[in-house]
């Protein structure tokens, strides 16, 4: 059996499709979900703060690969309800993991806003919610673009961990080619896919940073 260059690309693209689904599904859910977790870890109500911070500690303190396996296997082992979709299990594990990381970036961003901004909102008669959404949030976004772009570029490469429960993402697709056709190069060739994807993201984040650069402070 043999496969040509175009055939390799088509097979890899098929795997890359799952990489993209995992990437965008994780972002779409983890970016908003990080906000309530950030508020939880800043809560003035101590039990909520402690529980949230313990959760973030566990998620950041254990390997994502292990988390993927836990999410996939534990429901079946404990409750007799195994995951029907491997992809769903990976997406859930990734969302939880990335929401925890994002929440810490948000928390750092929110805490870096000077207290005077909140006080100015208060003396102008704005409610806390109005102050947050009209005054604080935008400044936080500007401050977290750089750390967020870093984390999001890491997510591109973390998607390869999905193969640990046999989700056919890019690396797994390449390994299939290795074992079926005895060709090694497609495995290394996957780097091109990651590089192009990360390159596009870097350009986009650069544009966003420039766009937010119209003011300082």
């Amino acid at each position, binding site marked *: 059996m043999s496969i040509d260059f175009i055939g390799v690309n088509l097979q890899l693209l098929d795997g890359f499709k799952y990489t993209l689904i995992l990437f965008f599904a994780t972002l779409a859910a983890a970016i908003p979900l990080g906000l309530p977790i950030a508020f939880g870890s800043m809560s003035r109500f101590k039990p909520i703060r402690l529980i949230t911070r313990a959760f973030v500690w566990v998620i950041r303190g254990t390997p994502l690969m292990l988390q993927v396996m836990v999410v996939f296997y534990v429901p079946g082992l404990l409750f007799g309800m195994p995951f029907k979709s491997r992809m769903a299990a990976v997406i859930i594990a990734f969302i939880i993991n990335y929401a925890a990381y994002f929440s810490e970036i948000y928390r750092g961003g929110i805490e870096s806003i000077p207290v*005077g901004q909140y006080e100015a909102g*208060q*003396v*102008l*008669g*704005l409610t806390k919610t109005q102050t947050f959404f009209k*005054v604080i949030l935008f400044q936080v976004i500007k401050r977290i673009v750089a750390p967020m772009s870093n984390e999001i570029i890491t997510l591109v490469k973390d998607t390869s961990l999905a193969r640990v429960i046999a989700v056919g993402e890019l690396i797994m697709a390449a390994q299939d080619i290795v074992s079926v056709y005895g060709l090694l190069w497609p495995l290394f060739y996957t780097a091109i896919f990651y590089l192009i994807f990360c390159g596009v993201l870097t350009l986009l984040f650069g544009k966003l940073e420039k766009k937010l650069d119209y003011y300082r402070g």
Partner: protein
Amino acid sequence: MAILEVKDLKKSFGKTEVLKGISFSLEEKNVLAIIGSSGSGKTTLLRCINMLETADSGLITVDGSAIFDGDSDEKLTAQQKLENQLKIGLVFQSFNLFPQYTALENVTLAVKAHAKSRPDFKENHKAIYKEIDELGMSLLKKVGLENKANNYPCQLSGGQQQRVSIARAMALNPKILFFDEPTSALDPELTGEILKVIKSLAAEKMTMVIVTHEMAFAREAADRIIFMDNGVIEEEGTPEEVFDHPKSERTKAFIAGYTEV
């Protein structure tokens, strides 16, 4: 009737008693300057009146209604709190402008937010916003910055930023305007433009309370002077009384210290 009345106001931070029973009143259209050394409690007093800090006990009345009553357990509703907050305006030492908004947007932001609760907002919002923008422009004109309306705070000098923040506080049409050391964060050559704006407001009979280190300015612009020391009002009176004929030894020492410099 006095527009502002403070009675036996006390405030501690931990074990440190910062305000040890402050009482004074201010007549409408008067300018009050509060002077005193750092740590005398003048900024804390201002922050308590502006509800950025909650006093421990005492009474604060603005325009006939109690905005803080240490003896009352009654909780104010959000609406009452808002009404109280809007009776007073505050200009901060460090401006605290919103950096992502232009000068004009800084001035109009809160006014526009409050306009949303007007019953005619839905059908008239374009006209209302236009009216608010015109108000904002007229206030910027008043502080001499109509040509900077579309600049961001980072493009303005410290003095210009402070003038925008005065316009922002004026936009809500407060009964009393408070200033917390409005020139302390500025280079000396920029303080003049702020003092000029405050004087022009005084000429328009705006009721103002100014915490300041600018003794010459306090003497010139204020109708009343309060000298605070160590959490109490050590001396109170007209500028002539406090500056020229101080009764208390501490006031004498403080004023002598300033005139020597």
